[in-house]
């Protein structure tokens, strides 16, 4: 066992490093389950409501692809699993991916791993310790999920199974990451490969739920769903992630024995020796730094839009079957399709806004990490430096919002055989753009005047807007408390008629706030 010497100490050390981050993943998992459980029991609490829902869902491929196998709809608990298990598994999978990747490949790359391995620790110790930490985190997920489900009134046995199924998916993805960190030298490639694996697992289970169930059995997410918690409580599929995990960890250890410290089976590819023509200005640098996330978010929002849009055509029938839903739609039952589209486009715009705020906050990260300093030691002014970043962020958010609208329009247009919907809904989504820009402007204002608190200020504002947009009606928040959200003051297209003044006023306000933020940056000490 000398190859794992020191693993126990490393486990405690890693848990200590994770003590701030890990609770958020657990809280997220608990909230996801608890919120869905309360909501579903509220909407479909009676057998009749559940039967109507079953009738709507049966054969609706788009909805099944986003959710789970129809059999889960037999009980209300199963309905909860149907709606959220896929997303819960993605969340837990990402948590495991980062836990394992951070303490193995990233440590090797930064040299921290070298420090650890120079002590009396075995070759396998960091990987084994990271997997133990992932296992502990998965156990915690199981307990939290069980608590959230049983605590909101779902049957105890099914809740235990649901928690175990979520943890099982986590274990499978942790073991996959263990292999990926042996293969790729670049931590980004590790996360990319495991991210693709998680996405593939989701797509495979979607294929299994719509068509041949065999596909689901190739997916760790499918294994979890097919334990059918609350709808038959099938325990044996829990063996599958454990068996797969054991095999993958064995493979990882074999690969680990065959490679040198710091190396991977696939080394870094050499990059460009000279800069491309585009990398010559603050905007060029801003694009280079943000292009990955802008392209990723644009693609993600396009896909989300297609998913939302594909349901738009059947929403009328769905609301007729489930009249309670109408209270969550801004326009009520009268204009079901338009109010549905207005709501989901708003959600997409909020997501685009969050990605744009993350892009703007990158400038602050550049400042504190010291990378901005050499740039500002050239003839680039602070205004030009921040302007480069923010211009890319603003333009990127416009593209992402338009892509979300385009996605809605493409799917809806195909459903109702009206290709013009694609451009129409892209335009409709862009109505929300001034509010997205205001979110960016507030982040820039905070960077200019409250640099140390900038991240908290910017994200609190995003969170506030999300709460107002999604929960203000269900929680009956008073009218005045919603007024600070820019989205409230824009027309809810396509439900409302769009007029120019609110858009122009909001854009002018965003411009003014941006200007104030730039002025703040110009007058303060830089780098602190």
């Amino acid at each position, binding site marked *: 066992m000398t190859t794992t010497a020191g693993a126990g100490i490393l486990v405690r050390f890693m848990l200590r490093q994770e003590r701030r981050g890990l609770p958020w993943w657990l809280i997220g998992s608990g909230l996801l389950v608890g919120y869905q459980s309360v909501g579903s029991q509220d909407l479909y609490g009676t057998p009749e409501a559940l039967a109507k829902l079953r009738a709507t869902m049966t054969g609706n491929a788009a909805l099944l692809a986003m959710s789970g196998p129809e059999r889960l709809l037999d009980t209300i608990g199963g309905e909860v699993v149907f709606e959220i298990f896929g997303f819960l598994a993605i969340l837990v999978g990402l948590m495991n991916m980062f836990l394992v990747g951070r303490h193995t490949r990233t440590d090797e*790359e930064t040299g921290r791993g070298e420090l650890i391995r120079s002590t009396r620790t075995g070759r396998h110790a960091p990987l084994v310790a990271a997997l133990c930490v992932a296992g502990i985190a998965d156990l915690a997920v199981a307990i939290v999920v069980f608590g959230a489900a049983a605590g909101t009134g779902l049957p105890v046995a099914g809740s235990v199974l649901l928690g175990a199924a979520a943890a099982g998916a986590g274990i499978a993805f942790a073991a996959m990451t263990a292999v990926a960190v042996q293969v790729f030298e*670049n931590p*980004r490639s590790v996360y990319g490969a495991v991210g693709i694996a998680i996405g593939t697992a989701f797509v495979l289970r979607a294929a299994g739920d719509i068509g041949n169930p065999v596909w689901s059995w190739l997916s760790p997410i499918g294994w979890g769903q097919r334990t059918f918690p609350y709808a038959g409580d099938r325990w044996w599929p829990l063996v599958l992630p454990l068996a797969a995990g054991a095999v993958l960890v064995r493979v990882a250890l074999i690969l680990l024995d065959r490679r040198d410290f710091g190396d991977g089976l696939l080394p*870094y590819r*050499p*990059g*460009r*020796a*000279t*800069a*491309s023509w585009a*990398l*010559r*200005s*603050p905007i*060029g*640098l801003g694009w*280079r*730094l943000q292009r*990955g996330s802008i392209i990723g978010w644009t693609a993600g929002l396009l896909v989300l839009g297609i998913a939302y849009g594909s349901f738009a055509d059947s929403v009328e029938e769905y609301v007729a079957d489930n009249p309670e839903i109408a209270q969550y739609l801004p326009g009520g039952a009268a204009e079901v399709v338009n109010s549905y589209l207005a709501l989901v486009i708003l959600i997409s715009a909020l997501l685009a806004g969050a990605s744009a705020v993350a892009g703007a906050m990158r400038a602050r990260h550049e400042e504190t*990490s*010291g*990378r901005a*300093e*050499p*740039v*500002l*030691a*050239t*003839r*680039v*002014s602070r205004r030009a430096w921040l302007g480069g970043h923010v211009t890319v962020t603003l333009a990127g958010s416009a593209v992402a919002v338009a892509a979300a609208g385009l996605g809605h329009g493409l799917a809806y247009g195909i459903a109702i055989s009206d290709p013009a919907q694609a451009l129409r809904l892209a335009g409709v989504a862009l109505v929300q753009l001034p509010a997205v820009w205001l979110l960016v402007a507030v982040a820039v204002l905070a960077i200019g005047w409250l640099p140390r608190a900038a991240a908290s200020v910017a994200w609190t504002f995003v969170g506030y807007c999300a709460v107002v947009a999604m929960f203000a009606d269900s929680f009956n928040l008073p009218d005045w408390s919603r007024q600070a959200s820019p989205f409230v003051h824009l027309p809810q297209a396509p439900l409302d008629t769009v007029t120019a003044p609110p858009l122009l006023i909001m854009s002018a306000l965003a411009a003014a706030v941006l200007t104030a933020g730039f002025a703040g940056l110009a*007058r*303060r*000490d*830089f*780098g*602190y």
Partner: protein
Amino acid sequence: MTSAISLTGLVKTFGTTRALDELDLDVRTGEVHGFLGPNGSGKTTTIRVLLGLLRADAGTVRLLGGDPWADGVALRARLAYVPGDVTLWPAITGGEVIDLMARLRGGLDRRRRDDLLERFDLDPRKKASTYSKGNRQKVGLIAALTSDAELLLLDEPTSGLDPLMEAEFQRCIEEVKAEGRTVLLSSHILAEVEALCDRVSIIRLGRIVESGTLTELRHLTRTSISVETFRPLDGITGLTGIHDLTVDGRHAVFDVDTAHLDEAVRHLSGLGVRSLTSTPPTLEELFLRHYDGADKS
């Protein structure tokens, strides 16, 4: 002679810490000026004020005839800077960073760039996250040396370089000096400063405590003497300016304040000198003398 950098009474505080405490610094055009001090003494803060990143709380700042806070962009077009710890964008290669910095400064001299890449033996195709500390430092140095800026601000530029690269760096600075350009070299590698610098300023707790040419500074310090005389070493303890004396028969080893050197040598020659070695003070001793006191106070 004009000054490339002139700081008088410069004060910069962070909260309750007084990072720069009425600092005066004068760097003449065309000289290589050593800026010595240990970590935390205020070297980097001074350079950040010169770059216009920090605003001075009090005092006057003149850089290339202008105020770096007010006319920063115009002044920075004429300088190049190397930070002590070059941090780079993980996914961008060293070659790309060098090109970007040159373009942001106003133009890229590709022949010079390729020449420097070869001299510093740097692979420009590697992503920055795979560079070692020394290689990141090379990226920063090449990016600065590619330019023909009239002033180079170098903040501990050679940290992490191996001796071969250190020698290459010294050759590059000699060339810069021969072209009549000005260099402010912050460092705590004293051999580097002794080899390169015309004048030196020593900073301690945010103040300049010594400034001058190496010859001038040496006058303020002690010379080590090892001597053997024909006659017994009488009266040597009574001399002024003698330190750390050890006498072994007719052989003595001691340090003498350079100001009292003449007096001591006269006395010794009166005793008949059989052999004498005198070691001039090194910058290191000079430096340690200022900082030994600092630790005790």
